[in-house]
């Protein structure tokens, strides 16, 4: 075994105090230094962390940002999600391939550059976008792609690719990114003013039970997608007699077309940390974890610095705000590229240093979460709302928004619209109004809530964005009149096929079958029976999958079958009933005919 690898692994494992639950940090670091986690490295890591090699291997093979095969020193990850493709990602990819002289998935022969594609990296408002190691490059064109390759060949340093810094904190030294905030509308709760710290002070003057009561009175519901009442979640987490509890901030933001947490993390981290600290006080947690998606690694140094500053200001650490006995600190846990890790139980698995598989429920995280401790997982935006609710009172919050859905919502709008970006608007806003703001009045279809949400057409534009009507974690994708709906559905299914964790059969196999069934229809070979099959298969996957991914992955199919039925009916095959028209006898016997040197006797049906 090579000595330096052994030393490096030893050093990396020591930096996490040989804590097995920090496996993701260990393998991420090894990957960073060597471009892979080799079998030899896995062996060494297993030995140092006193576990089995297969445990290490199962982690390395699970996450998109980790690999056993050596990757280039520079890895280009081009987003190939549907929004980027609409903006020409295919041409960008072709330019990268041509200029590098390799195909997607390959590494240049000198071992310098690897080219791959990835799902949404949270830059849909500046698509096409790519990650080059941790550096975001946006608004790509084929020319720009060629330039990037040319430059990388000169200096090999992705950081030097950053030319025009973005606005706000993107331009700060610790972020130094070309990312643009694209804040289009600042609402009352989050984006209009900087954090004041007032919310935390108010909260600490109350009992934890009073804090929870206020959050309940404000009728705050989770902003991450599922919309569970936050106060209730905290109450459950606080219940019971555990000596230690945990609050986790979900900054995985993996739902394609969502990028509003990116903007909060860049511009309002204090508000988020404040909300998290209030949450810790309310549920009685002393440990906080921010689970930050690997794609947002460019924000990590900046967020660490904010945490450091908060510690020095006495709003984090021991005896927060002078309150004896209220000790709470936050660490940032990096993800490693897996959509499923946004699902709260998978996220906890990932924090515990294992594959990001969802867990069985019950027990719920509120009962047994991170390392078995009662845990509350809350979205970035939810926590920001908490800070403001404590600052201005629940009445102020419920006065914003609609009867049933209090407060504002950050919406990420992308696709065929004039002004893509982040809009903070009161819940209950009609979709039509939103489209007007974004310059998307001619839209043919809107995907509300990302691939796991639903697709609606113009007859639904008077419906409202809120929990009881069109619910969304933030993703609003606009498809203009020329887009092909079935191709969008196909792209969404491809995403789910890629991202299924593989644990349960309905999702692992079902999504592949759904994609096949849609492909058959797209090819014009499907019949009415195939439509019925598609419907029933989608319902089966939805009903029988184990976690939220498989329970929502058929939504693109189900919602388009309902709202865009005609696009399916237009492509149905006209041929003889009862036959499968994607089976072609002439093609099926062509090999045998060539081998036998004669033609088929039965070619005529």
């Amino acid at each position, binding site marked *: 075994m090579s000595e330096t690898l052994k030393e490096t692994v030893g050093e990396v494992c020591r930096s996490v105090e040989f804590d097995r639950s920090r496996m993701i940090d260990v393998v991420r670091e090894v990957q960073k230094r060597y471009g892979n986690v080799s079998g030899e490295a896995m062996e060494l890591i297993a030995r140092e962390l006193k576990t089995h090699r297969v445990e290490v291997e199962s982690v390395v093979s699970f996450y998109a940002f980790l690999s056993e095969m050596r990757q280039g020193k520079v890895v280009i990850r081009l987003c190939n999600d549907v929004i980027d493709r609409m903006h020409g990602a295919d041409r960008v990819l072709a330019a990268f391939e041509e200029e590098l002289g390799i195909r997607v998935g390959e590494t240049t022969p000198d071992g310098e550059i690897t080219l791959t594609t990835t799902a949404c990296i949270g830059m849909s408002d500046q698509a096409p976008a790519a990650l080059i190691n941790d550096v975001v490059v946006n608004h790509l064109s084929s020319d720009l792609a060629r330039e990037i390759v040319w430059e990388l060949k000169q200096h090999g340093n992705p950081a030097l690719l950053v030319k025009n810094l973005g606005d706000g904190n993107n331009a700060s030294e610790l972020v130094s990114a070309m990312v643009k905030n694209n804040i289009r509308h600042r609402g009352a709760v989050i984006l209009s003013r900087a954090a004041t710290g007032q919310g935390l002070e108010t909260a600490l003057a109350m009992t934890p039970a009073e804090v929870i009561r206020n959050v309940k009175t404000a009728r705050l519901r989770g902003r991450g997608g599922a919309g569970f009442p936050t106060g209730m979640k905290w109450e459950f987490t606080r219940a019971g007699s555990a000596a230690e509890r945990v609050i986790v901030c979900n900054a995985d933001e993996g739902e394609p077309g969502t990028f509003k947490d990116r903007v909060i993390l860049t511009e309002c981290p204090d508000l988020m940390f404040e909300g998290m600290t209030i949450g810790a006080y309310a549920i009685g947690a002393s440990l906080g974890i921010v689970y930050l998606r690997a794609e947002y690694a460019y924000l990590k140094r900046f967020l660490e610095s904010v945490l450091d500053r908060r510690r020095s200001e006495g709003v984090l650490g021991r005896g927060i705000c002078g309150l004896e006995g209220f000790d709470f600190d936050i660490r940032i846990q990096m993800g490693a590229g897996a959509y499923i890790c946004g699902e709260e139980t998978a996220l906890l698995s990932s924090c515990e240093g294992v594959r990001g598989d969802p867990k069985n429920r019950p027990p719920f995280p509120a009962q047994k979460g991170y390392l078995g401790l009662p845990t509350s997982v809350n979205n970035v935006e939810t926590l920001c709302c908490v800070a403001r609710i404590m600052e201005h009172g629940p009445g102020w919050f419920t006065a914003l928004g609609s009867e049933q859905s209090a407060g504002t919502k950050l919406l990420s709008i992308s696709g065929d619209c004039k002004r893509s970006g982040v809009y903070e608007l009161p819940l209950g806003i009609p979709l039509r109004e939103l489209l007007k703001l974004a310059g998307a009045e001619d839209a043919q279809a809107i995907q509300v809530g990302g691939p796991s949400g639903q697709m609606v057409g113009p007859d639904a534009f008077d419906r409202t964005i809120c929990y009881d009507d069109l619910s969304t974690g933030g993703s609003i994708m606009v498809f203009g009149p020329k887009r092909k709906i079935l191709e969008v559905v196909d792209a969404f299914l491809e995403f789910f096929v890629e991202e299924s964790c593989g644990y349960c059969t309905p999702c692992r196999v079902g999504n592949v079958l759904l994609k096949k069934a849609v492909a058959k229809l797209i090819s014009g070979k499907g*019949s009415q*029976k195939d439509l019925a099959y598609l419907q029933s298969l989608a319902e089966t996957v939805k009903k029988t999958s184990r976690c939220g991914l498989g329970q929502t992955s058929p939504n693109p199919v189900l919602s388009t079958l309902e709202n865009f039925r005609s696009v399916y009916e237009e492509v149905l095959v006209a041929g003889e*009933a*009862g*036959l*499968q028209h994607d*089976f072609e*006898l002439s*093609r*099926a*016997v*062509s*090999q*045998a*005919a060539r*081998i*036998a*040197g*004669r033609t*088929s*006797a*039965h*070619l005529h*049906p």
Partner: protein
Amino acid sequence: MEKPRIATTSLAGCFGCHMSLLDIDARILDLAELVEFHKSPINDIKAFDQHCAVGLIEGGCCNEENVKVLREFRRNCDILVSVGDCAIMGGIPAMRNLVPLEECLQEAYLNGPTVFNPSKRIPNDPEIPLLLEKVYPCHEVVEIDYHLPGCPPPADTLWEALGALLKGNPIELSYELIKYD
């Protein structure tokens, strides 16, 4: 009233499923009371000249003739049932799907350790149907209405299912009839 007609065939199968049908023992007499057998290896009727209520298909499609027969069944039967694992998913014959067709033929007729073939020729009479590039389950070639799993499905399963189909009842098979371990 005219008795409903049923037809059966064995495509790329081993006839095990047909044997299982015969395994209903004395009930075969009841069945003969209930239905009239049309095209089937059981009575050796070769061609359809009347429409049938039910067609039972054993085996998947491995060659062009299988496809032809299966399509005839589809045209001449109201209800088609894939009987047994070969019909449903290709079964044992589909193991060749992992090997390119040319290599399959070479292994079977030239290179296999037990092959005796002094002529060193792969049979190629015009009468021999051409093989498909892989073995297909029946539902990938025509629409299939029901699938009865098993290798073969037990006689009681066939009996119950056929009875329900002929009476127009929903097929409700008890756990014992569709449990395979």
